[in-house]
């Protein structure tokens, strides 16, 4: 089939699609959301505890304590990924373990561990951001656009 050709689908194709739909496993959306809420909330609560730890013992303020918290959580993600715990958690929690920063750490670290058999330069180095690269790309580019627009507006005196 040519890419982009928009032939009206024949009756058989439509029937087949309907047929296929009947066999598709229904996703338990509510149950998945509940699991994501509980696990995601739990991870953020641990993050809050780490934040308080840095505020009380290392003289960070509420504003700056986010940075060491993120680093600590990525470290925990490294240990959990290495021992294979995070993958199992991910199967259970879905977005609950993928959306917190530990999911970002898990994506980078699992790529690094997976490709170490190909060598440290081409394997680990080359594939490090294989999964997390899109997050970095779109994060940086959107931040660039947003910050540029805001800076220009401030310079023009609009804000």
């Amino acid at each position, binding site marked *: 089939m040519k890419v982009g050709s928009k032939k009206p689908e024949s009756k058989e194709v439509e029937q087949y699609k309907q047929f296929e739909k009947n066999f598709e496993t229904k*996703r338990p*959306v509510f149950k998945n*959301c509940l699991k*994501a*809420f*509980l696990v*995601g909330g*739990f*991870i*953020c*609560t641990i*993050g*809050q*505890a780490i*934040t308080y730890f840095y505020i009380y013992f290392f003289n960070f303020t*509420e504003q700056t304590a*986010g940075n060491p918290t*993120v*680093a600590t959580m*990525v470290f925990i*993600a*490294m240990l959990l*990924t*290495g*021992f*294979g715990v995070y993958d199992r958690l991910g199967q259970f929690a*879905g*977005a*609950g373990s*993928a*959306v*917190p*920063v530990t*999911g*970002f*750490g898990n994506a980078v*670290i699992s790529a*690094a*561990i*997976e490709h*170490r058999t190909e060598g440290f330069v081409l394997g*680990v180095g080359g594939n*490090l951001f294989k*999964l997390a690269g*899109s*997050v*970095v*790309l*779109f*994060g*940086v580019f*959107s931040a*660039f656009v*947003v*910050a*540029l*627009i*805001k*800076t*220009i507006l401030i310079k023009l005196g609009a804000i």
Partner: protein
Amino acid sequence: MLAMFFWAFVVGGTICVIGQLMFDVARLTPAHTLSALVVVGAVLDGFGLYEPLADFAGAGATVPITNFGNTLVHGALQEAEQHGIIGVLTGMFEITSSGISSAIVFAFIGALIFKPKG
């Protein structure tokens, strides 16, 4: 302090539910979902809405990946205030550094210590 733990749980959990709905209802892949959430975080900070959320929910707002977009914009704006437009580029990673650097450093250490399974 207990209220802070409660709101961290609720807000963080809610952001994860939004991600889960993007998985299940919008049928996006995890990579698409996370990229979209980062862009949302960056735009929210552009309108100045992310910092009030972080003040209110603490780690509930700073641990999810949306914070990544927020800190990128924050660093860029902070530097742009001092050095003008070029600061947008030079300051981009100023605050986000901890997430990216720790991910790279710990990923390499992890690759040294652990062996791939199966």
